[in-house]
């Protein structure tokens, strides 16, 4: 009887621990990567047969059907430029210039889906962003409406993805030093 109980305990503990490690290493969080560029993180092996089992599982969970680097590079940020977690009860300014790609967009997600809002606004892109006279732009992430370049967010953690479609060769050559926008926390409730 005691032996059967020990076997059962061993099985349950082993299965629970194994699944917990898979959750912690592949399911929890957001799109993974091993290359940091400020608050942004990416991998050159997304969508590629070269991706290892951990990246492959992360992409399946958080970025299924992502294109390989020849077509698109995805940078994701779950923290601002000071390292604080992005949360909807704070507002943020994303400041920068056009990244070196044929086309780009910045999109906000919560739990890997677009964030519901009455304005049906989810992103800014190369086509839609309003720029200053010097070509720079500032995007506002907030719950309350901003005058221009506004991406609405709601309470709770969220993250951002920059898509670089047909990136310039310099991006793939040195993905940790791409001139991507900074993310500045403005104020919090």
């Amino acid at each position, binding site marked *: 009887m005691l032996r059967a109980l*020990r076997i059962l*305990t*061993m*099985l349950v*503990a*082993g*299965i629970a*621990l*194994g*699944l917990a*490690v*898979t959750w912690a*290493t*592949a*399911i929890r969080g957001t*799109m993974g990567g091993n290359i940091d560029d400020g608050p942004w993180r990416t991998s050159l092996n997304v*969508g*590629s*047969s070269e991706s290892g*089992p*951990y990246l*492959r*599982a992360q*992409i*399946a*969970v*958080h*970025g*299924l*059907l*992502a*294109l*390989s680097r*020849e*077509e698109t590079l995805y940078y994701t940020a779950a923290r601002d430029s000071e390292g604080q977690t992005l949360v909807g009860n704070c507002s943020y300014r994303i400041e920068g210039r056009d990244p070196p790609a*044929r*086309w780009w*967009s910045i*999109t906000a*997600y919560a739990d*890997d*889906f*677009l*964030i*519901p*809002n009455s304005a*049906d606004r*989810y*992103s800014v*892109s190369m*086509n839609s962003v309003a720029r200053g006279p010097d070509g720079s732009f500032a995007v506002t992430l907030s719950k309350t409406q901003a005058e221009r370049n506004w991406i609405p967010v709601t309470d709770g953690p969220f993250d951002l*993805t920059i*898509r670089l*479609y*047909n990136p310039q060769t310099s991006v793939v050559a040195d993905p940790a030093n791409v001139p991507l926008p900074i993310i500045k926390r403005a104020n919090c409730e």
Partner: protein
Amino acid sequence: MIARNCKWIAGAFLIAAIVHVTSLLLLPRLIVVRTMSVMARSASANTILHPPRPSARSRTVVRPSPDLLYSICVYDLRAADGAVRVSIHDMPDTYWSVSVFDADTNNFYALNDRQAKTGVADFLLAESAAPANDERLPVVAAPTSRGIVLFRILVSDDARMAELDAARRHALCAPYRAG
């Protein structure tokens, strides 16, 4: 106490390692199969779907881009008796691409508007042996017999939505019959 239960603790760690590796390796394919099952509720394999522009209500595939129109097809080479023809033509002047993913999430083929040049993409998806092909279409070897074909079309201007939505309906993903 610990010494007495040492073999049971070691056994639990061994089982944990096996469960971790197995679940990690199976997870991508399980997610692809689940996604294909969800899509099968709307259309059978080798049939293209044209879902609405992504919004917060879009829940089939994670992290969609709200700036793109997607058309999607589950390819099944066995159900198609060997080959599936994938094509699109008369595409307007905007970024578009057609990409193909195997059951392990690998993006093993992609073609965009600049590479297609003439606004046309037209190829066969097949398993290793090239099918009889009188039209001399390029053949793309699929690593797995089932997977996903995805068309992306950039909505460069909201005013062009109707034009772009009409254009993507030229897309084809269907069993290929030679001759």
